[in-house]
């Protein structure tokens, strides 16, 4: 019976590889007002193999642990407001997301949320909105990156 359950699980796992997109991304990807980008593990594996340095930081160790990157952005007034509201509803302490960081600078707001998922996986959500430029960007990172990994990012 155990073998049966195990093989059944294996069969299921092999067919659900593509179901890695979050519900929020799924709801946004068909909205023509938003630009969306999904980068999967296959693509990230290639990024990892070359040296990845951003603003003097070596991100190789972090990229290695990433499962996916999802970006939703818009630069139009009404959709920007709509995306901002939807993001703050979806990602909030009420939905088990912990606020890691919040920054306000004039009309520019940035919030980073964190949620621990199953299987040692974590989800980080960055929401940036600028009222001046009518721009909202939501970046969702999933993977086994821990808050300690972020602390340990070394400057080159």
């Amino acid at each position: 019976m155990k073998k049966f359950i195990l093989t059944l699980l294996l069969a299921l796992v092999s067919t659900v590889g593509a179901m890695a997109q979050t519900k929020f991304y799924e709801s946004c990807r068909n909205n023509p007002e938003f630009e969306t980008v999904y980068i999967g593990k296959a693509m990230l594996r290639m990024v990892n193999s070359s040296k990845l340095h951003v603003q003097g930081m070596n991100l190789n160790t972090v990229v290695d642990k990433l499962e996916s990157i999802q970006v939703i952005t818009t630069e139009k007034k009404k959709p920007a407001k709509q995306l901002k509201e939807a993001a703050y509803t979806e990602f909030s302490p009420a939905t088990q997301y912990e606020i890691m960081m919040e920054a306000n600078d004039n009309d520019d707001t940035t919030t980073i949320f964190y949620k621990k998922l199953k299987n040692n996986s974590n989800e980080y959500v960055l929401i940036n909105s600028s009222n001046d430029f009518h721009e909202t960007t939501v970046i969702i990172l999933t993977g086994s990156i821990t808050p300690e990994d972020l602390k340990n990012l070394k400057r080159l």
Partner: protein
Amino acid sequence: MKKLIFTLLILFSSLVASAAAFDSVFSKFKKIDGAEYVKVPGLLVRLSASKFTQVDSLPMDIKITGIRVLEVPKSAGSKFDKAIEDAGKNCELMLETTDNGEKAIIWVEPKGNKSYNKMIIYSADDRSLVELSGKFCPK
């Protein structure tokens, strides 16, 4: 014994479903009116694309052994989109981007842990589907 055969069948069917994911899309939509379908024969690919093993700045070893291209008319749009989305669920999503209602998606079909044997590129803008078969190994 029955249980073993049954579980093996389930496992095998899931693998077959993955391998044939886009085959059904090609075979179904190439027959519709106005569709354009091109399959580049293996020999021709070997002659022309065998030297093509690298793409600038993409750290991947590429060996292409087959190319299929399908473009369907606007009238087949929503059905084609649905078939593509369903087939894509059986592959690994590599990259997806949407902008102003235009959509481009790249899937890969894994072969083992470190390489892929198919790369499928879909452009919703002109409803075209390109399948590259071969070996794609990230360096």
